[in-house]
């Protein structure tokens, strides 16, 4: 597994697509989630209507709300980027046929895939660290520009929030990685993953959230559980669009860990057993 991890480090570092994805994540988070939100709420348009005044709403981008704001953003754009990252890491190997170059070297198939998973775990950890650091810096700059004061979250909240961010990123990356192994096609893995995220989870999850029967099924979806974990980190003001959570944060965390294990085990089973090449 160590040999595979060392090989993965070269591939991951030198692949521009990975850096571009990370750049898109940071740019959208910082520009849309922070800078643009602050500018709009500092100078609200005349037709701006909200139950919460704009001067309160804009505190969303200040240090006191660092964790809930980052988690909210990461569950949409962040999840999509992580699915693409995971999908690319495995499906590309089939597209380029490099999977057969890898598999005729020394490590076993299990070691090869575990090395890839370990690399993805490290990548998601680093992305979580940099994302949190960049948003913290941005929120500090914005509150400084605003001329007001804001408290940083406690160390406990920061650590828990970081854990929640890493777990969510890891689950979506593992989902993309699993789809890449299952479909052996980059387009199918990414297309399937994003369709599930935006149609299955976001659209149907919202529309049918209060439908009996369906609600029971929704309780088991990774996005719904990630949302429950995120919701346990409260904004410092009561947001009018806060949805009722279907599960609590503890169950959400357990379910996400179960998904992480399930995607990993399923990918391993398929990768170990399936023929490479041929018709």
């Amino acid at each position, binding site marked *: 597994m160590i*040999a*595979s991890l*060392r*090989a993965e480090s*070269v*591939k991951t570092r*030198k*692949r*521009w*697509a990975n850096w571009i994805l990370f750049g898109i994540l940071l740019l959208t988070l910082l520009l849309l989630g922070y800078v643009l939100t602050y500018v709009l709420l500092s100078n609200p348009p005349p037709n701006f209507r909200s139950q919460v005044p704009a001067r309160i709403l804009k505190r969303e981008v200040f240090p006191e709300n660092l964790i809930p704001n980052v988690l909210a953003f990461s569950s949409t754009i962040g999840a999509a980027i992580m699915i693409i990252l995971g999908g690319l890491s495995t499906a590309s190997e089939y597209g*380029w*046929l*490099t999977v*057969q*170059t*890898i*598999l*005729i*070297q*020394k*490590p*076993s198939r299990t070691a*090869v895939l575990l090395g890839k998973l370990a690399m993805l775990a490290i990548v998601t950890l680093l992305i979580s660290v940099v994302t949190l650091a960049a948003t913290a810096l941005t929120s500090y700059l914005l509150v400084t520009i605003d001329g007001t004061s804001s408290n940083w979250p406690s160390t406990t909240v920061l650590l828990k929030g970081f854990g929640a961010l890493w777990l969510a990123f890891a689950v979506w990356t593992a989902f993309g990685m699993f789809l890449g192994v299952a479909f052996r096609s980059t387009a199918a893995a990414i297309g399937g993953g994003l369709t599930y995220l935006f149609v299955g989870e976001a659209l149907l999850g919202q529309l049918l959230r209060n439908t009996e029967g369906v609600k029971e099924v929704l309780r088991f979806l990774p996005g719904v559980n990630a949302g429950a974990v995120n919701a346990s980190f409260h904004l410092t003001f009561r947001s009018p669009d806060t949805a009722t959570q279907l599960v609590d944060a503890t169950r959400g965390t357990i379910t996400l860990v179960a998904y992480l294990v399930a995607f990993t085990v399923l990918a391993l089973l398929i990768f170990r*057993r399936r*023929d*490479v*090449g*041929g*018709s």
Partner: protein
Amino acid sequence: MGLAQGLAVETRGLTKRYRTGVLAVADLNLQVRTGEVYGFLGPNGAGKTTTLRMLSGLLRPTSGSATVAGGVPGSPGSLARMGAMVETPAFYPYLSGRDNLRVVARYAGVPASRIEPVLQLVDLTDRARHKFRTYSTGMKQRLGVAAALLKEPELLILDEPTSGLDPQGTVEMRELIKELRHGGRTVLLSSHLLNEVELTCDRVGVIAKGKLVAEGTVDELRARSGGRALLVRATPVDQARRLLQSLLLPGQIQVRDGVFSLAVEPSQAAGINRRLVADGVDVSELRVSEQSLEDVFLQLTEQAPTLPAPASGGGEKP
């Protein structure tokens, strides 16, 4: 069982039926001796690449077994002692040639110091810093060979290494393969190019429609398929045919483009010539011909039995 015991590759009833029902390889019994260059010859679609994939552990056989470099195909023990380039050289397009070898070396647990020597061996040092996606077909093939050599393998499996190369590249690759056998290395070379096999291999296995139809040295295969023949160009052809039919058995006579090919010993040439001339037939050419490997190949592959159709509901084992 290992390489020291004489066989680098041994297959026993190796069979592969794909999920689609296609029987690609059927009951293949192959023996590649340690230290030899073995040519695995067959037309396109004969089952060569499927066999090599099974030997590399990429495909699971439907039935049968194999020992490759002393181990089960695909096991770390077997893979550590073999290097392979199967079907096409597959590398990361966004990495340079050198970085691709770095990745392969890390997977194989080989020190990075091996990279420069193999680049030099395949004459790719000057282009090693360029991205793989910019490489020509020949350069890709050479990088594939370099990757296969990183482990300094005892067994080297090369699948159609001259495929897509220009004549100059083909000659260079053949020279390289001849160099690679030094030091007792075993080379299993698959090809559909007869000339290539004839020039580089000690022994040849001919596969057709998934079955091994012949195995031996090039000379042995020639002999098995009739060996030498006496070629006679004579006119009028009909009169010559009638006379020859009275002298020889029907199976000994073939006519192609007005030239008789007679399956007889060369010592009979003078007697046959005398009889033809005495009968008023003009003999303009009379010579002994060595049967080419091409003739042997065509004869063997055309004679290969068609594989049975897939059984209904049959498929690849899970």
